[in-house]
């Protein structure tokens, strides 16, 4: 299948090159699939979306969306994409209906079709009851749904969602996931950014891990988990025993990851059960009391940690 979104060596710098928001970013998204761009704040996720959706011109590199060059023919790209950003970009003083009709008209639908499409979308996103209320009165989740609806007016081939659930409560998030899954089943090509590993796991066919403006790993959630090798052994001990326990675990193999706050140590293991027994014996021999012990399949969090050396959801100063 042809790639609907292609990005090659995208570079975008700010403040005279001091900040490299994109530092040679490469991407491709096959038609009808979902790519999740995963990365911490400041990794370049939003800049990437802004370049691909024609809002920002890169310093160098090349990108095409639905076969159209983003830099040379931004107007044509705008005809086939939908964009929903990090905040609900709608007019808050107007009603949901007003907004959708206005955007419909701006997409050059006739008056009647704009109204019909607005009604249809409000129905689809369960907003019909609030259609005639100003957006000001909407909840965060409702705003996001309306914002998403506004990006779907002309049934775009390619959809960009920049952190679609940031700031939503758990219910709103699951709600949004259902809506997005529905869209994907209709065959739209979707590029979504997120700093939530669970979200990428849930929605994306393929994940690109981005850090410092580069893709540092790519694959399905399972492939990424396999990349860091096998399972992880996690041991919780008393705070005073941390150093002794770390020494014991270090002898069993791999790099020991310490979580000081939770008094937890973890190592990557390949033959889980054997190491488990050894760990128990080893720790017992030096008199460390084990508070909790578990053998875990790696989470995407672990993947992220092993790839970047820092957790996904922490703030990174750019």
């Amino acid at each position, binding site marked *: 299948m042809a790639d609907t979104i292609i990005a090659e060596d995208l570079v975008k710098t700010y403040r005279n090159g001091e900040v490299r928001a994109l530092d040679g970013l490469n991407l491709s998204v096959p038609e009808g699939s979902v790519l999740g761009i995963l990365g911490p704040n400041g990794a370049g996720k939003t800049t990437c979306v802004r370049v691909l959706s*024609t809002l920002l011109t890169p310093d160098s590199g090349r990108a095409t969306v639905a076969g159209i060059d983003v830099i040379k023919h931004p107007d044509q790209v705008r005809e086939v994409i939908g*964009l929903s*950003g*990090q905040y609900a*970009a709608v007019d808050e*003083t*107007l009603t949901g209906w*007003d907004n959708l009709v206005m955007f419909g008209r701006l997409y050059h639908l006739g008056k009647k079709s704009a109204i019909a499409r607005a009604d249809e979308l409000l129905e689809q996103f369960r907003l019909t009851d609030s259609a005639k209320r*100003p957006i000001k009165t909407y909840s965060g989740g409702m705003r996001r749904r309306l914002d998403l609806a*506004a990006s779907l007016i002309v049934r775009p081939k390619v959809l960009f969602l920049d952190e679609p659930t940031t700031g939503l409560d758990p219910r709103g998030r699951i709600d949004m996931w259902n809506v997005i899954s529905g869209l994907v089943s209709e065959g739209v090509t979707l590029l979504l950014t997120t700093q939530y590993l669970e979200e990428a796991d849930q929605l994306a066919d393929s994940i690109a891990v981005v850090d410092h403006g580069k893709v540092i790993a790519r694959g399905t959630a399972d492939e990424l988990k396999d990349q860091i090798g096998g399972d992880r052994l996690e041991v919780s001990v008393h705070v005073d025993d941390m150093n002794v326990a770390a020494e014991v675990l270090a002898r069993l193999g791999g790099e020991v990851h310490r979580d000081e706050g939770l008094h937890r140590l973890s190592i990557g293991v390949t033959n889980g059960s054997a190491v488990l027994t050894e760990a128990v014996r080893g720790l017992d021999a030096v008199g460390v009391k084990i508070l909790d012990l578990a053998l875990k399949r790696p989470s995407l969090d672990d993947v992220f940690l092993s790839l970047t050396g820092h957790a996904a959801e922490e703030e990174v100063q750019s």
Partner: protein
Amino acid sequence: MSVIHDGLIITKRQLLQLSRVPEVLIFSTIQPVMFVLLFRFVFGGSIETAGGDYVQFLMPGIFVQTVSFTLAGTAVGLAEDMTKGLIDRFRSLPIARSAVVLGRTLGDATLNVVVLLVMGVAGFVVGWRPTSGGLSIAAGFLLLLSFGYAMSWIGVFVGLSVRDSRAANGLVFIIVFPMTFLSNAFAPTSNMPTVLQYVAEWNPVSTMVAGCRELFGLPNVFGVTANSWPSQNPLEMSLIYMLIIMSVFVPFSIRKYMKASAR
């Protein structure tokens, strides 16, 4: 033309906003009317003006001051759209590049029509009687609307540059307030220190006010600057100023819009 079509949809959005939040329209007309009343009755007695009572002198000044503040309306509106991410959305739509700013300036011009109408009526109630013919008076209002429209384009640039509506509002006051007071709008320049008289003479607000006074049938009085070109030809000078403002700020503002980004 799709620019006009798209622009008008943006204008319609702004008018729809006004109908949803009518307070905005009410306050933006009450303020200038309040100025008319305050100046007419508070300063009216103490400012000496040649040829007629103070209200005749005052009205063109207040009209010009009011349309000058269109700069604020446009700047604040666009700065708000910017922070809310609406400009990003508009820029991702397949519409002409100038449509959004064009629509915004047209909306603010429409608002000016209403405001000027209400002010004219308020002025009439407190004794304003333009003595020229209907055609001249109409030309005066047309001149005011055009000046407001030119100021609106400066507002586009300010709003898209500042990116924060409160900052935009603050900045505009710093620019426009001295501009309207360092002029012949509220008091004759002839009593100012000589240096200031020259500054006031070239101030676009002054040439506008003098031009309007001419069109409304009131003789202009100047101090040391009486024989200068802008004092002699206030209408021409005003048109030149508008031309300069538009030819600088229309292309700059559209460029700014194309590169605009919320962060």
